[in-house]
Every structure is written in structure tokens, then in C-alpha cells.
């Protein structure tokens, strides 16, 4: 069964260091999302790609976060420098292109990367 792959699964980093997360969406899924989820809360959208283009990054702290999806397939999310408040689960999701959310449409989530900044 196809799934969204994320790595690493866990990451511990010191504050002020750089950290990067990788996501490989389900093959053929044009839309890719990065979400941040603080423990006990719902996911918050950081950035949304349609192919290689950013369609929404309004909630991305652009002074320290960056995201790219150069070939419209896999994606990298980077934080530099990391801060203590960045500790969270970073989830990647993908969905098919050009479909309104209906009975046969869903966002498939990866297992996430659990980031701890110390």
C-alpha cells in the first residue's frame, strides 16, 4: 500500500542549530502539505505545494523556516536556527491534484518527525 514517507522519525537538536526534515509523498500526488502539531493540539498548516509551487505559506515563520519541492516530488522543510518553541511533531501529507474534497479524496499523512529542541 502506498504511503507518505518521512525521515527522520525522531530528531533532537540544540537550539540555534539547523535541522531538516524530508518527505516523499505518494506517487502521483501533486499537492503536498507540511503541518506542525504541538502535543495535544491539532495540526497547523505551515506550507502547501501544488507541484513545485507554493500555494500557501501564510503561517510559515519565514525568518527561520524554509521549504522546497524542487522537482514537484519530494520535499524538504528546514529550520535555521532552531528555537525551543519549535519542539513539535512535523507532519507531511499529500493528496491528488485537481479534486475537490469529496468522498474519494483524502490527505494521506506520514508518520511525522518528532523534533525536540534542547
Amino acid at each position, binding site marked *: 500500500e502506498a504511503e*507518505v514517507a518521512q525521515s527522520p522519525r525522531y530528531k533532537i537538536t540544540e537550539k540555534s542549530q539547523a535541522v531538516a526534515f524530508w518527505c516523499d509523498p505518494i506517487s502521483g500526488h501533486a*499537492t503536498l*502539505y507540511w*503541518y506542525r502539531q504541538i502535543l*495535544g*493540539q*491539532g*495540526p*497547523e*498548516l505551515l506550507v*502547501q505545494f*501544488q507541484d513545485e509551487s507554493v*500555494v*500557501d505559506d501564510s503561517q510559515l515563520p519565514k525568518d527561520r523556516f524554509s521549504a522546497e519541492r524542487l522537482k514537484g516530488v519530494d520535499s524538504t522543510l528546514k529550520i535555521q536556527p532552531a528555537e525551543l518553541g519549535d519542539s513539535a511533531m512535523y*507532519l507531511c*501529507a499529500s*493528496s491528488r491534484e485537481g*479534486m*475537490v*474534497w*469529496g*468522498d474519494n*479524496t*483524502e*490527505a*494521506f*499523512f*506520514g*508518520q*511525522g518527525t*518528532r523534533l525536540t529542541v534542547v
Partner: protein
Amino acid sequence: TQLLEQSPQFLSIQEGENLTVYCNSSSVFSSLQWYRQEPGEGPVLLVTVVTGGEVKKLKRLTFQFGDARKDSSLHITAAQTGDTGLYLCAGEGGSNYKLTFGKGTLLTVNP
């Protein structure tokens, strides 16, 4: 910004009991999805509701979309310990297929 309020935030019940959790907004959504998330895992889609007033059943789970497409409810009959998890609702609105999530209801079903 479209906001989704979920209630209750926490719910602890005994196995066999029934429960209902709610998802409310002042905004109209084109569709609304319910996800279940287990600790350390990503959310998994349970159902999508699209039509106002729509009711969908998934075994012991019943989902309803409000007539005005601003709210939804999830009812679980005869809860089992395997139903334990974080239940998230997510609404879709706008042209970018953007999903906005609520904060979730953390359900614990005790044996």
C-alpha cells in the same frame, strides 16, 4: 481565517458507553473530514462529509454534517478500548484545497 472549535477537549469513558463529540465553526466549509490519530502516528481519515445534513455511518461511528455546513458531530456507540485516540475534524474551504484542523478531542476508553 476559518476556525474549527472541537468539544469536549478531553473525554474519558468506560467501555460500552456512547459518546458524541462536536466540531463547530462560524464559517461555511465545502466539506469536512474526521480523522483519528494515535500517539506518535499521523492522522488517518475516517470520513468526508460534503452535503449539508448528510449522515454517514462507519460501523459504530455516525457522522453528521450540519445543514448549513458549519458544524459536524461524531457519535460512537458502545465504545471500545480500541477507539481511544485523538479525533480531529478538518474543514476545507477556498480554492487551494486547504484543510484547517480543529484542536481535537482526546478520547480515552477505559476497560
